[in-house]
């Protein structure tokens, strides 16, 4: 693995902070897959390797050590499909998802359904062998390059809000889909997709799980999306920390003591998260299902990302402000989204308080 990474590091920017990463992410995904390093813990009949999840972590740690980009993070979609979809749906979609030959986005949030996801209003109405879609999705990462959308839509308006939702694999290259991507505060244009469905169609056989199971499926996905081991972000944080360390080490005297301290603390945080991922994976060997524990992991991951982002800003100093270090500025600005995406930190703390600490719901 080390030898291969050394020879194939594409030298991409730190992921997610620049459009170039996303333009070339598909290449990186297929390169990893073709070399046999992607999907190590996923089923071999769909292109994975049937190994324990710890192998994904070995990959993450080696990518981090080499300063290579992290693996594309789509484990939560794989988990959603393997946990809930029929065998036929798994066979149809998992190989393309895992190999990177087919690209996916995730259509959950809507302009009026953010933290209150279950109130979403996109409808899927049965019409013969198909469902017809109407609605507006937002924060649909990379929807403009996606072949498929893992869509959550209301199929039954007459039952309580959590019970009327279903999940679909929606083909994105068709009429009736319009894209209005939003620009993030760091200038990225690719990540915050916005999609309007206006009469687009999805075959009924593309439903993931059964009608009305959409909420349960969404919860499987978001709980995995909250796990740093699942999304492989440790490699991303460690790469930034190593870059910052190299910058300071080249001339320590050129930096103030608070800048040294910021980098050292970012290292402590990133190292903590690396060890935390190892512990979570070890626990999973006992078959422990994380459930609300994913919210703790998400908070830890957020603290790490924002500590690392602040350290990047600190080390760059005025260069981040007057135009000499755009990378540091982008890393810092991007880090502010981490306490919102995948469920805000406030929502995570509500979950921890009520479902882990056993405090009464507010």
């Amino acid at each position, binding site marked *: *693995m080390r030898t291969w990474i050394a020879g194939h590091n594409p030298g991409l920017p730190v992921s997610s902070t620049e459009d170039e990463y996303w333009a070339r992410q598909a290449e990186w995904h297929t390169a990893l897959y073709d*070399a*046999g*390093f992607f999907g*190590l813990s996923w089923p071999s009949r769909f292109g994975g*390797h049937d*190994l324990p999840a*710890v*192998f994904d*972590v*070995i990959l993450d740690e080696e990518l981090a050590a080499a300063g290579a980009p992290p693996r594309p993070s789509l484990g939560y979609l794989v988990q959603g499909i393997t946990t809930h979809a029929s065998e036929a749906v798994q066979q149809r979609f998992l190989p393309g998802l895992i190999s990177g030959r087919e690209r996916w986005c995730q259509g959950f949030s809507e302009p009026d359904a953010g933290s209150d996801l279950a109130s979403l209003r996109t409808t899927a109405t049965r019409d013969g062998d198909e469902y017809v879609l109407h609605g507006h999705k937002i924060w649909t990462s990379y929807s403009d390059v996606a072949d498929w959308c893992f869509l959550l839509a209301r199929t039954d308006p007459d039952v309580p809000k959590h019970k009327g939702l279903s999940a679909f694999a929606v083909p994105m290259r068709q009429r009736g889909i319009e894209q209005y991507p939003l620009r993030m505060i760091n200038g990225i244009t690719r990540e915050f997709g916005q999609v309007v469905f206006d009469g687009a169609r999805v075959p009924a056989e593309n439903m993931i799980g059964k009608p009305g199971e959409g909420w349960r499926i969404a919860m499987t996905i978001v709980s995995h999306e909250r796990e740093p081991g699942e999304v492989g972000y440790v490699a991303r944080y460690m790469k930034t920390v190593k870059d910052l*360390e190299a910058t*300071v*080490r080249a001339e*320590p005297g050129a930096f103030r*003591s608070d800048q*040294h*301290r910021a*980098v*050292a*603390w970012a*290292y*402590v*945080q990133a*190292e*903590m*998260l690396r*060890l*935390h991922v*190892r*512990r979570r*994976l*070890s*626990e999973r*060997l*006992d078959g422990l299902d994380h459930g609300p524990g994913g919210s*703790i*992991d998400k*908070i*830890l991951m957020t*603290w790490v990302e924002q500590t690392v982002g602040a350290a990047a800003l600190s080390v760059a100093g005025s260069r981040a402000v007057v135009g000499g270090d755009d990378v540091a500025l982008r890393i810092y600005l991007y880090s502010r989204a981490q306490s919102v995406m995948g469920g805000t930190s*406030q929502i*995570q*703390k*509500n979950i*921890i*308080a*009520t479902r*882990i*600490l*056993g*405090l*009464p*719901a*507010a």
Partner: protein
Amino acid sequence: MPGFCKVTLICDKDSSHLMDTRDTPEQAELRRTARRLARELGPRRVADLDDHTRSERLAEAVRSAGWLELRHGTADGDPLASGVEAAIIADALGEAVADVAFVGPILAADLARRAGVGAVDGAVVAFSPDLIDAAVVPGAATNTPILAVDYAIHGPVAAYVLVPEGDGYQLALAETDGASSGADLTRRIRSIPAGVPVVRVPGQSRRLSRDDLDAWAALGLALTSADAVGLMRGVLDVSVAYAQERKQYGVAIGTFQAVQHLLAEARCLIEGACSAAQYPAWAVDQLAPDEARAAGRVAKAYCARAARTVCETAVQVHGGIGNTWDCIVHIYLRRALLSSQWFGDEGEQLRQLERRRLGVTYGLP
């Protein structure tokens, strides 16, 4: 690439760098026993700290369980148990703010073992006044005041000091009498004044090297971190229970999101601290000494900061009562202060990590 995967799997299974952090069945049993014992015999109220019948039963239980001997040497010089087992007990005792010497005697036994000599019963290690390093005494008597930390017995206390010899150190003992002092009401510290004679420990078969002291300090960092993890868990349990029972505006204060979020953040800090603290406890017997010590520094930096935050949250959630002597939360906070300072607080660890990773010297050698 099945070939690659198979090879790696086998290597990983045989490797001592195995990433499995779960307790073995024996460790899980030890954890259950230690937590039960600490809960039963530890103080539940501040007034219990004056109940010497109870604290002597606790000390006797820890002694008769054999826990003070975990770092004694076997015939070939290896410790009887790994750093992981010692950390399990430190964690359990911290969780119950158990007023019994454990880490002190364990560190003394580990240091004596590294010098190739049996530990003197009841001895602890003397520390420099900043509590960071084992005390070094160049002459025949102490030349500055030093500190015996976490000793077990009443009456005279024997404390190991390091005497420079060639390119290493030999062990000597300084004995002192007097009252204990310090912020922590659950563990004893006694100052050994300047001018106390130090007596070379007979029968030492090895000189303590830099590596020995690094590995020993890694154990100290791991155990003080484990103690912090335990006490954070203990004080959070106390605080969550209080938030469920204390009513204002006609409802439990744990109903309010402002209180819930403080407690939720504390819970996250504990999980992070736990993950960070496990690594040096394992590393102390498995990695090169300087790597183990660096792992200990990461754990300690994280745990020290987390412990203070979590204990301060506990005081806040308890409101006015949390600021009174008879409320148990300050017992946890005080213990956190000693566990943080012992082997260096987060500022010291970060300073050392800056030296190691960034080449910043701050006048350090």
